[in-house]
């Protein structure tokens, strides 16, 4: 993770800020974005990349722990990258945010029933069952995943992977339409 920002402005309260960037699916685009975070000292909590409903356009969800002003500057900085088509700050907008995790947990026979009970309570599920361990899969908000990890910890977590958050605005419209012109619109300012 990058170092703390060196900027001298007094910081407001830091919260998890979620931005969605629509980017051209070209070699090096992700490199440009990550390089920007690194050199500007933005502290990234998670970053996910994937395809979208439109060919040639990828969608990046990035969660930073920052105050609102820092998030605004991050958004403005992202816009300066020419492969970035548009950016949405969904932190304060009605939206759905989810993250997925696999947790490999020690599961000795005598505690297995207790473990499965917990998994059920969290609406998680077991996707692999071994003699010594199980893999639990879960999807939910960051808080839900944090909660599950905490209750599993006493069993002994062998391995943990989280995907990082993906987010989508509620409502009928598709995101990312503002900045992404059709090709025939050209590059006029």
């Amino acid at each position, binding site marked *: 993770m990058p170092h703390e920002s060196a900027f001298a402005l007094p910081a407001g309260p830091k919260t998890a800020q979620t931005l969605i960037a629509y980017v051209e699916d070209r070699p*090096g685009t992700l490199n440009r974005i990550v390089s920007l975070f690194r050199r500007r000292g933005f502290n990234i909590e998670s970053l996910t990349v994937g395809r979208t409903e439109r060919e040639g356009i990828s969608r990046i969800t990035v969660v930073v722990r920052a105050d609102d002003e820092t998030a605004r500057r991050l958004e403005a900085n992202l816009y*300066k990258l*020419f492969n970035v088509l548009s950016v949405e700050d969904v932190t304060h907008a009605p939206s759905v945010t989810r993250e997925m995790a696999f947790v490999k947990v020690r599961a000795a026979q005598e505690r297995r029933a207790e473990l499965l009970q917990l998994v059920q309570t969290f609406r998680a599920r077991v996707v692999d069952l071994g003699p010594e361990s199980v893999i639990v899969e879960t999807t939910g908000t960051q808080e839900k995943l944090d909660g599950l990890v905490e209750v599993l910890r006493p069993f002994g977590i062998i391995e943990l992977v989280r995907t990082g958050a993906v987010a989508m605005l509620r409502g009928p419209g598709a995101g990312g339409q503002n900045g992404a*012109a059709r090709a025939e619109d050209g590059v006029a*300012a």
Partner: protein
Amino acid sequence: MSSQSAAVQQSKGSPQADPAQKTGAQIVWEVLAREGVEVVFGYPGGAIMPTYDALPGYPIRHVLVRHEQGAAHMADGYARASGKVGVAIATSGPGATNLVTGIATAMMDSSPIVCITGQVPSTALGSDAFQETDITGITLPITKHNYLVTRAEDVAPALHEAFFIARSGRPGPVLVDITKDAQQGLARLESRPPPRSMRRHPIPVASSEAIARAALLIDAAERPLIFAGQGVIASGSSQLLRELAEKTGIPVTSTLLGLGGFPASHPLSLGMMGMHGEAWVNASIQEADLLIALGMRFDDRVTGKLQTYAVNARKIHAEIDPTEINKNVRVDVALPGDVGRTLSALIPAVQAKTRQPWLDRISARRSEAAPRDVQTIPCGGKLYAAHVLHDLWRLTEGKALVVTDVGQHQMWEAQYYKHDRPRSLITSGGLGTMGFALPAAMGARFARPQDEIWVVAGDGGFQMTACEMVTCAQEGLKLNIAIINNGYLGMVRQWQEFFYNRRYVATPLRSPDFVKLAEAHGLAALRVTKREEIPEAVARARAEPGSVVVEFRVEQEDSVYPMVPANTDLRDMIRRPANAFEEE
């Protein structure tokens, strides 16, 4: 492109089946010609040879530099002198990496240049082939954008877009890396190639509410200052700035790169702000109740210690790059967008006023500072750099285009050469690149063939790119080159004097005989050791048809005053001792 040159290419017996097809190399020149490029600065090598081979027949002049850093600075100097895009060309590997300092210089100072580099064939990419380097990776943080082009059909769209990106919005450098097989391959060149990008590039515009709030703050202010940055010059808004200042009676101070955006001879002009800014300016900033910042970015050399910077002032910030707003200084009114457009909206919204008490207060400070000004101190048989710059200003009637290097001489120039016109000072501000001046001035020469140009460089910086003197001779360029030779890396020596107990580590500098060196490179040269010799030397330099080096052997341990040490309150200036010269 004219049909005549097209005929020249066809006559080479190339194996083209379709006459509408061209090689990627030909397309490079076709696109440059379409973009209005008249001159490129470059150095050939293996991976860019197909492009060089295709140059004859196109109406573009190539200037062979002696080091690729010079090519990038020349493109930069051309861009800053003209406002148009400058172009540099280099081969792969070391050719490309030698451009890096020049690209970073252009990035920091928002100068529009396009750098074209050759690259190993696409089949060899990633194999550590001879002279292969990942130049798009290397330049990623120091370009506005860059491209790796591996097919002939991508050359035109990438290059056209590169020019668009370089000059649009906040300008900056763009690099286009073209593999050798893309230069050799064939593609149809459309009369208007389809745009490559799917993205619009809107320039932000300040809202009318923000303009109204800014006008309210301006009308209510009693001690306001206007800050003129390079954005005033880049957006061609000097006249609008003058209208705003004259209507509101608000005095104007400039950043280093903003000098010339507001006439230095104007009664409302205060001079430069910041680390080596005028004492009355920095003191007034700390006392001001409103700062109206136009096209600048509150660099640390401008602000000093942020925690104590202009704490009494509200701030209005007009700036084309939204990432600069609220970056270093928290502002009260943000006016994102083109400075000219913002000023056009703001001027009718503000009240006409005079602010005599505030101006009187600043004038009084100015008078207090006068006895400490080296200009008012007799030379006593010595040659001071500040006197050289002052006399140069007088002798050229302030009308020369001055291109400076980096260091003490740069600050003396900013203080004592009074610029009345935009684009009359070219200097490396943000990156502070030594070796910038000579090649940048050579580039400027192509943009401004009629103007008198003076290079002002120190003995240290000049030696970094002195090899370009012979390029001057080969190309028949007329420049007047002043070397301010104090035998030290002067600015570092000054810091050692002030902050490192006068331990002059690695700053005493032996130089070659600059007169002989210049003559060996085919330039005329003379030397000045006394102030009274300056007028004749300047006259001789101006009369010489070719480039001339004038070496000024100046006082060795003079310092630039005033000085605000790094990260210090602007009021805590180191001043020139008032009696420093009386003792001698």
